[in-house]
């Protein structure tokens, strides 16, 4: 203000009149004019004044729609760009208080994302699905983690709410087509109440820190903006970068509706335009398969393993059995195996076999092996096995039952008793069985002649008769039968040994009292006895009657008796 100096009263009155005139003419006092003049003459002062008006003017212009934020962006960006080029430190200083929390939040988000990824991986476990992913990773040259992230998320975002931060009122809601309607207004308010409750109760320094509510499989992710809050209702485990989607959405909503949000008066109609942003948050991923254990596959595997195990055990046992058979055959006399091989369920055996060796069937049957499991081929050979040598000797010599055969080296030892004919045959051998070089028969005894029992059996018999009677009583009949058996044997003996033995049927009498008559009776008696023998089967040419007189004999004999004596017809001549 201009200071008034004491002047002439006339001058003062003139000045007052001039002022009055100015006021009447332009409506401004001198003081106001001076201030305008100062603004025009001093750019610094003018800029100072304008700087206070400009933000207000711009805000008014935006409100009226004369300019938009988009119109201003190029200038602001250009200015910031130049400012940063000119003095980067200045921007760093400005951002410093912001960057700390921003970096912390980014790191925390990344950690959360990583934990979510690990959780998802663990949830997948070592299932066939993971093995398939590993295969995918190998074939596609992508990392396994990438494949897991691409595949393992199973989630469904059913509702997204845009909530006014201060009032808790629902600004807009989007829901998945198949989801049931919720009381969105109430839920929004309740979420806000819960957020307030958490914030109040735990005295959180930073507002808006309730980011997640989890109830079983249901999860509510909350993304805070300065004026609005985005809440997504999710079933299952969303991908870790879903949080980023929410952040971008709430940013887009704020960017496009900052004035509406700031000046919110309860009218939500304008927020219907946020639908396109909110719909981006309604994402879902179908479950590729249920997480229950693959029972069917496990059952198939188990059956497969059991089948394979059974097959291997069976095959092992079969092979073992066939090898045992081959070993048993090899140890059998008369066999020499050159090859034995098991292929599948069949054993192939080839080698040499002595014709006298026992067949393989007894071993095969004892070991319960089917014939079709065996494929055998044998060439004949002469075995030097002692058992086979003895067998061969037995076939060759056909020894009688009393003869024993044994071996000492390549010498056949013949012992025991044999009849003369066999002994004679053995002595006349011109060739020996294969494999036997010599025969030792020193232990062999020739059986004594059969005469030793036939002749006494015949000669010890005697029959006594009454005068003029030739008839056997019961007792004599028994003796007679025995005599007949011996006489018949004598005939066989003659045939076997080519002998001419015969039997005298001797009738004893005496010379006294008419020798001739006595002789006649005696001869008749003998003849009648011969006819008795003949009727019993004894050949007539084996029998010869003979009458002997007691007086000619050195021994006492009973009269009217018949005795017997064996003689050789060729040596006796004609009696």
């Amino acid at each position, binding site marked *: 203000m201009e200071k008034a100096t004491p002047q002439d009263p006339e001058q003062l009155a003139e000045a007052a009149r001039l002022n009055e005139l100015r006021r009447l003419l332009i409506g401004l006092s001198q003081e106001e004019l001076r201030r305008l003049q100062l603004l025009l003459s001093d750019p610094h002062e003018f800029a100072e004044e304008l700087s206070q008006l400009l933000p207000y003017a711009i805000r008014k212009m935006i409100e009226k729609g004369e300019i938009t934020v988009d119109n201003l962006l190029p200038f602001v960006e250009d200015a910031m760009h130049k400012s940063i080029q000119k003095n980067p430190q200045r921007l760093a200083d400005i951002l410093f208080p912001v960057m700390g929390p921003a970096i912390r939040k980014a790191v925390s988000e990344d950690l959360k994302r990583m934990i979510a990824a690990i959780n998802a991986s663990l949830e997948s476990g070592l299932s066939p699905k993971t093995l398939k992913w590993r295969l995918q990773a190998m074939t596609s040259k992508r990392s396994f983690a990438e494949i897991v992230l691409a595949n393992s998320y199973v989630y469904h975002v059913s509702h997204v709410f845009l909530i006014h931060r201060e009032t808790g009122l629902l600004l807009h809601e989007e829901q998945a087509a198949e989801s049931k309607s919720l009381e969105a207004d109430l839920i929004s308010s309740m979420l806000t109440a819960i957020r307030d409750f958490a914030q*109040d109760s735990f005295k959180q320094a930073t507002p808006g820190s309730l980011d997640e509510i989890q109830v079983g499989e249901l999860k509510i992710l909350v993304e805070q903006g300065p004026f609005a809050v985005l809440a997504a209702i999710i079933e299952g485990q969303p991908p870790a970068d879903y949080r980023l989607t929410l952040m971008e959405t709430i940013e887009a909503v704020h960017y496009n509706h900052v004035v509406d949000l700031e000046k919110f008066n309860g009218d939500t109609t304008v927020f219907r335009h946020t639908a396109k942003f909110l719909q981006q948050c309604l994402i879902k991923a179908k479950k590729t398969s249920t997480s229950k254990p693959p029972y069917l596959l496990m059952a198939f595997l188990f059956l497969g393993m059991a089948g394979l195990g059974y097959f291997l055990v069976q095959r092992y046992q079969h092979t073992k059995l066939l090898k045992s058979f081959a070993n048993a055959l090899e140890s059998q006399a008369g066999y020499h195996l050159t090859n034995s091989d098991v292929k599948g369920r069949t054993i192939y055996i080839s080698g040499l076999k002595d014709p006298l060796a026992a067949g393989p069937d007894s071993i095969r049957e004892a070991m319960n092996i089917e014939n079709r499991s065996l494929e055998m081929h044998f060439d004949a050979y002469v075995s030097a096995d002692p058992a086979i040598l003895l067998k061969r000797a037995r076939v060759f010599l056909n020894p009688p039952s009393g003869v024993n055969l044994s071996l000492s080296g390549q010498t056949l030892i013949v012992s025991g008793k044999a009849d003369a004919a066999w002994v004679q045959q053995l002595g006349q051998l011109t060739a020996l069985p294969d494999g036997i070089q010599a025969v030792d028969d020193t232990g062999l005894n020739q059986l004594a002649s059969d005469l030793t029992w036939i002749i006494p059996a015949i000669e010890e018999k005697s029959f006594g008769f009454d005068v003029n009677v030739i008839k056997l009583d019961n007792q004599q009949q028994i003796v007679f039968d025995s005599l007949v058996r011996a006489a018949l044997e004598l005939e066989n003996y003659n045939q076997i040994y080519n002998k001419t033995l015969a039997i005298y049927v001797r009738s004893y009498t005496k010379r006294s009292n008419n020798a001739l008559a006595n002789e006649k009776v005696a001869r008749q008696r003998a003849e009648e006895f011969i006819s008795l023998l003949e009727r019993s089967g004894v050949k007539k040419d084996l029998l010869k009657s003979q009458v002997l007189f007691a007086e000619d004999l050195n021994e006492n004999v009973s009269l009217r008796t018949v005795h017997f004596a064996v003689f050789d017809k060729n040596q006796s001549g004609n009696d």
Partner: protein
Amino acid sequence: MLGAFAVGKTSLVQQYVNSIFSEKYQTTIGVKIDQKQLIIDGQDITLMLWDLYGDDDFMKMKPTYLIGASGYLLVADGTRSETIDVAIQLQAMAAATTNNAPFILLINKSDLDETWEIAPETLLRLQQRGWQVLLTSAKKDLMVDEAFEKLAKMMLA
């Protein structure tokens, strides 16, 4: 809904709306929220009713719940004069938090004449301060709808 313990806030809300949340929310997080659709002067209005836990020695009301409120009902019990004092204290806090949002003082339990404790002078004094005062009975459904509708109109004004 603001008021001392057991003045009938929940009963008033129950009388007015059908709630989807159980009352246990009040005792757990201190608030139960209900919704009421109504038409005022041909305009669709949705009232979100935040029924706050009664202010008593055991659990203080959380002022945060008042932030963003467009209006509120102060509730007192006509048979307990001290609840008027609580209502006055709550109003002072609410006025500051809600930036002088409109409100109505409801003196509930108006059906209990014989135990009525509040003198007419007290109410007159409050009305002289510009307070809107209504006598209600949640039990007999007296003036309940009117109270909510009146508040809605005040908020729209």
